[in-house]
């Protein structure tokens, strides 16, 4: 969760990365770096607050509104605080054919929360997403960069227990 007492700023490594990303585009087209920078910001802060968006706008010399309207269009950016692990499960047809609804039902039961909620200890947030381009390996969910595929109730238990440790 964002610590609102310290000003928003990228870590030195991320700032260097951000500069490198901005330099990829032709002169004057630095706004193209917006999605990559929002990903970078979310990686650092876990979610994208309006302070974070203002900071990104500053880095790109664009208006804050240009960042807000983009961040709210794309589903990957969390505009509210989330738990430590955000589990995004695929709810689309092919994953459902592979028994997705049962597995996700089990997942909700295991965590004791419904879609859109966060566990009281702040460890897990559950989100429903559309097709993750892994339909033949469904049911599928994603936690940050990692894909968890061919899910079964047993696998869900293992993954949650493993992640609960840290």
């Amino acid at each position, binding site marked *: 969760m964002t610590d609102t007492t310290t000003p928003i700023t990228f870590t030195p490594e991320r700032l260097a990365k951000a500069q490198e990303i901005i330099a990829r585009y032709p002169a004057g087209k630095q706004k193209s770096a917006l999605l*990559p920078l929002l990903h970078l910001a979310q990686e650092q802060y876990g979610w994208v607050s309006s302070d974070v968006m203002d900071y990104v706008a500053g880095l790109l010399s664009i208006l804050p509104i240009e960042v807000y309207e983009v961040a709210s269009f794309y589903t990957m950016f969390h505009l509210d605080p989330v738990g430590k692990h955000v589990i995004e499960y695929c709810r689309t047809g092919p994953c459902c054919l592979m028994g997705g609804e049962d597995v996700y039902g089990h997942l909700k039961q295991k965590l004791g929360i419904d879609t859109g909620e966060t566990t009281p200890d702040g460890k897990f947030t559950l989100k429903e997403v559309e097709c993750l381009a892994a339909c*033949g390996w469904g049911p599928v969910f994603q936690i940050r960069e990692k894909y968890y595929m061919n899910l079964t109730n047993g696998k869900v238990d293992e993954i949650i227990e493993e992640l609960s440790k840290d």
Partner: protein
Amino acid sequence: MAVKILTEHINVPGINTFDVYRKMGGYAAVEKALKKMTPEEIVEEVKKSGVRGRGGAGFPMGMKWSFLAKPEGVPRYLVCNADESEPGTFKDHFLMREIPHLLIEGMIVSSFALGANKSFIYVRGELMYVIQILEKAIAEAKAAGFLGKNILGSSYDLELVVQPGGGAYICGEETALLESLEGKRGNPRNKPPFPAVKGLYQSPTVVNNVESIANTPWIVNNGGDAYASLGVGRSTGTKLISASGHINKPGVYEIPLGITVEDFIYADEWCGGIRPGHHLKAVIAGGSSVPILPANLILNLANGDKRLMTYESLSDGGFATGTMLGSGGFIAMDETSCVVRNTWTFARFYHHESCGQCSPCREGTGWMDKVLERIEHGKGNMHDIDLLVDVAKKIEGNTICPLGDAAAWPVASAIRHFRDEFEWHVKHPQEATQPGAVYRGAMELV
């Protein structure tokens, strides 16, 4: 064994590294293209190959390339569409993950052919781990002198940028993708102007799918005629099929265009048949957007001939009895599948993904989602079924981009071929809403 253009070496250990890829003959096409061919000659070979865009629309790639405007002093761009978000499709994900250098090699020869010095690969943001794989491959290729300034001493410069999306199916539509790449919301543009004239940063741009571009090294190495000799008629070459659903071996298969649908489903070389003890009920052959067909119609044409895995054969019969190859997302459904429920998940998908710019799409996808949810949950009436057909008809052809059509077709086709099942939901709400309940009426299974 069928000829493999894309996946011949995919199981070689370490093929994701530059060294192994190179040892297996990789980057030979870059050497040939830059040292022995002119850009025009490459475009000519791609034209001769007859390869059609693999992103869904099937537009001839060579023709698209030849439309690229070439005003003096204006940069041109090649943008690879790796947004892959059409439900049922996961082939580009597979190809980039397993053999990233094939796409990089294809991007180099294609960029050279089009005269682009900066090219982009736009990957859906969810595939961040694949983006990392591509970035590593690009660094390796650069270190080996295949990217950067003065490649192989040819005086040709190329820089490749991998761009993450942010989670939005609509950004697979090429003009929405360009908007997104410019750091904006993914709202499709009105056409014309087409990207070939005014694309990225208002400059001439070619947008091609991952698989399309991955075909170009083979075409450069072997010639367009050799490519055109594979396949059937105007369906030349091979096609990656993403196979999911109730088959024995879900996965990605590179098939020669022209095998029968029956072979694809039942042969051990491909899907290996329907899972034990079950029977085929329906297939969605080209990703969620294309019309669903019942088992007998996907296997056979209306005249009784066997249907083939080609653009032409899959669309034989129009929408009355046919469908489309689309992106090659092949979803097989056995008798345990509920067509109403599956159609509803798709309608919900399109409702969620509509960018909201045009009212027929924004409102229509919302209505279809709502009405299908109602029917699926035993709260529908007979009039709802006709209402769905009516809404689908009002969306079709009346929108800025083809997402509207893509949303209408699955609903219209499901009702066209499975009306009984919708009516059963309306007439027997209690039975239909039992967990796992599926209509088992007069339906032909195979």
